[in-house]
């Protein structure tokens, strides 16, 4: 076609970018981070607390998520419905979230109503009713939700993977949101106790992001912190994470008639503050973090086994995991798993090429401004600084480290952080169709679990 331009354009000079400037200060005794993003009429006001799943007592897995949901089920002068309507009439969307290392809640709200949203947030965290009928309803709804969630192959594989990788008794062996059994067994008093222990003024940080030109952020912060007399923040006594020692093996969760197998394969890994964080995660991009990564290329673009294949490290505050995953059609379960493991081993043995590293480096450095495009993403990034105790210039420094990382460091991370001989593989699928072939892969003993879901 003669009308097309044959030569690929050469890019102009890169334009400068840095993580948005933000300010840390203390208002009414509370820690506050504000970040002015001009031209963003929807703001985020969010509270982050050191009350994630790892701070849950043994046997109470999932209580953090129950607490954060119960906050909006009646607080201050509002009953559950009144609280919902009060926020929504401001155009404010309540968002709550828990993960391994934090509990977060707050609103996305038009900037003009930010102070009003702060008042509602204050009621939720300081004066939640936590009355028995509401707590029981939230708890039982959550049990139903977990069952619904676990009926999907991905979440079921994730739960099986956690308990296959981590020793029984350590928190990571149970999903961060708990199981239907642990949540169903939570008494209201334990839910209230976790609220008191986890949400105290000296254990939370308020984050406000958006076009704050016309917003009195001090008033918003005072609404949250002024007069909040804390009790004592709970001291989390977490069991140090400890991987299981059985070595490599395959766990099949049997779902007769499945037309696909959900594959999860990996092992434990380092925490967020590991010194080789940048080379390790850059290596993982080459292996499974981009469309042209080795895992996706092999399983999707080369073999057509799957809609997609991924691999990444999940670095938590105490430890982490390396996980490769893909949903593949049942007939090719064993060869697909073998291919994925072979890619992990090849990366472990030989590392990345210079060209792959260049692509991963420029991709990762380039997407910073795209990933931090709005108030929600910036607020989440700021919360991560708090959770992992990272310096204020972290993101700019991280981007520079990404640009500077060299092949030796990346390949050293491949050799030490990938452990193909320790892989645990979980397969959620039709056991009768896949077990014999899985045994022949030599990926370790194959154990079949009846699916309780």
């Amino acid at each position: 076609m003669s009308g097309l331009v044959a030569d690929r354009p050469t890019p102009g000079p890169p334009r400068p970018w840095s993580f948005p400037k933000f300010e840390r200060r203390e208002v009414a005794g509370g820690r506050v981070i504000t970040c002015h993003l001009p031209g963003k009429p929807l703001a985020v006001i969010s509270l982050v607390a050191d009350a994630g799943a790892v701070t849950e007592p043994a046997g109470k897995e999932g209580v953090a998520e129950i607490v954060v949901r119960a906050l909006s089920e009646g607080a201050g002068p509002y009953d559950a419905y009144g609280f919902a309507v009060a926020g929504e009439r401001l155009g404010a969307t309540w968002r709550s979230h828990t993960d391994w290392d934090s509990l977060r809640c707050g609103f996305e709200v038009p900037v003009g109503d930010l102070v009003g949203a702060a008042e509602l947030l204050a009621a939720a965290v300081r004066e939640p009713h936590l009355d028995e009928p509401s707590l029981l309803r939230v708890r039982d709804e959550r049990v139903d939700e977990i069952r619904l969630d676990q009926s999907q192959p991905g979440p079921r594989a994730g739960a099986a993977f956690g308990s296959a990788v981590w020793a029984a008794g350590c928190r990571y062996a149970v999903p961060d949101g708990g199981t239907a059994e642990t949540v169903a067994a939570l008494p209201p008093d334990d839910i209230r106790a976790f609220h008191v222990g986890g949400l105290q003024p000296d254990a939370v940080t308020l984050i406000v992001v958006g076009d704050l030109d016309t917003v009195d952020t001090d008033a918003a912060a005072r609404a949250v912190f002024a007069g909040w007399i804390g009790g004592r923040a709970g001291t989390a006594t977490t069991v140090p994470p400890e991987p299981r020692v059985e070595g490599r093996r395959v766990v099949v969760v049997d779902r007769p008639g499945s037309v696909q197998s959900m594959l999860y394969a990996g092992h434990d890994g380092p925490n967020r503050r590991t010194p080789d964080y940048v080379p390790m995660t850059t290596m993982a991009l080459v292996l499974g973090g981009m469309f042209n990564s080795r895992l996706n290329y092999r399983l999707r673009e080369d073999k057509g086994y799957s809609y997609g294949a991924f691999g990444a490290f999940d670095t938590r505050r105490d430890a982490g995991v390396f996980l490769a995953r893909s949903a593949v059609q049942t007939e090719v379960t064993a060869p697909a798993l073998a291919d994925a493991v072979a890619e992990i081993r090849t990366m472990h043995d030989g590392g990345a090429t210079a060209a792959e590293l260049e692509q991963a480096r420029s991709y990762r450095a380039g997407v910073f401004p795209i990933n931090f495009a709005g108030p929600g993403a910036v607020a989440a990034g700021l919360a991560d600084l708090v959770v992992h105790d990272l310096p204020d210039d972290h993101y700019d420094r991280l981007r520079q480290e990404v640009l500077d990382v060299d092949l030796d460091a990346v390949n050293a991370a491949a050799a030490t952080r990938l452990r193909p001989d320790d892989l645990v593989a979980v397969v959620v699928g039709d056991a009768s169709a896949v077990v014999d072939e899985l045994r022949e892969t030599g990926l370790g003993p194959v154990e079949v679990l009846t699916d309780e879901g």
Partner: protein
Amino acid sequence: MLTVVPVLPDYPYTLHTLDNGLRVVVSEDHLAPVAAVNVWYDVGSRHESPGRTGFAHLFEHLMFQGSTHVGRNDHFGLISAAGGTLNGTTWCDRTNYYETVPAHHLETALWLEADRMGGLLDALDQQNLDNQREVVKNEKRQTRDNQPYGAWLDLVHTHAWPKGHPYQHSTIGSMADLDAASLEDARGFYSTWYGPDNAVLSIVGDVDTDATLAAVRRYFGGIPAKGAYPPSPPSDLPARIGEEVRLTVPDRVPVPRVFVAYRCPPFGTPEFDALELAAIVLGGGRGCRLYKSLVLDRGLLQAPDGDVTSTWPFVAGATVFIADLPAREGADIGELEAAYHEIAEGLADGVTEAEMERARAVHTSMWLHHLATVDGRADTFSQLTTLFGDPGLVNALLPRQLAVTAGDVAKVAREYLRPDNRVVLVFEPAENAEEAA
């Protein structure tokens, strides 16, 4: 607490049409050094021929497999190396392709889009087709066939529109049709539908409008217009289904779940605007009627965020209004369904001004959220220009929808949320789902 009227969107834009018919929307936004490029082709699963369902979407996959000057892996490779993100999607009324890149790589994205708009056939081969056919079949397995309740979407398409209507099949299509798709089909589809005069290109971000238009002319200007496209398949149909269509679907699922779909006027009509607000009053957010009654008061429904109802933005003949009702464990599914119908039909009896205020505020925030990123805005410019020829609707649509009155909502509820106009799908847990599904 005073409610402050939120700022309505007022995004700048220009619309130009190249000599070959390509419509180009450019909207400057200098808040971050990024640019979003988005192309909508006015072709979707609605334009597929009988026996070739799923083809528009399969074809979208082939658009990532190289073109005249672009190697098989280069589309993803070059955008990734530029530090950008990209993807494509297909639905009934469209196929879209998009990249978000650091702004100094804008021309790379334009060059890639132009090359496949004008030169796909040079790279299309049997190997690519066979590979992507398997990928798409696995996409169907992953998103439908191997998911609990995964059949619901196809069933809505089959039963909410009459036989032969272009929306009567879903975008993913059937395995048999995917298997039957040939290289000849792919060439024919491209030659029929893919051309500059059947596309809208939107560019939003840290760009200069004049320089961007010059670049667009450079890369796209030489692609010849096709001049004519097949007329849209006929889409006229009765305004209502005329009866209740009810199906019970045994499936391997943990709890019963009811989906209700109503036929209603398409996106672009005043009735659709009113139904958008009705969806929020009835089933959007935790201040909605369904959450209050079925979640809080009666414990029958699982909907932790209160989001129960939605509308699909289809434009040909009629679209649907959907309610998704998963039962609480132990709840009686018949009681849940009956309670739902009573509340949904109750909208016809009237809506309070307080409910309307809440719905308007929720709708405004959702729309602002949607437009907050350059990629979301670029997609919306492309969408509204493709469907209605008017990029200005990015700013004008919201005020129009906010003018919907309580009376409008009651009226559309009366006319469309009614027993003789609904498809009811009841999923029930079955012992042997293999035979059931």
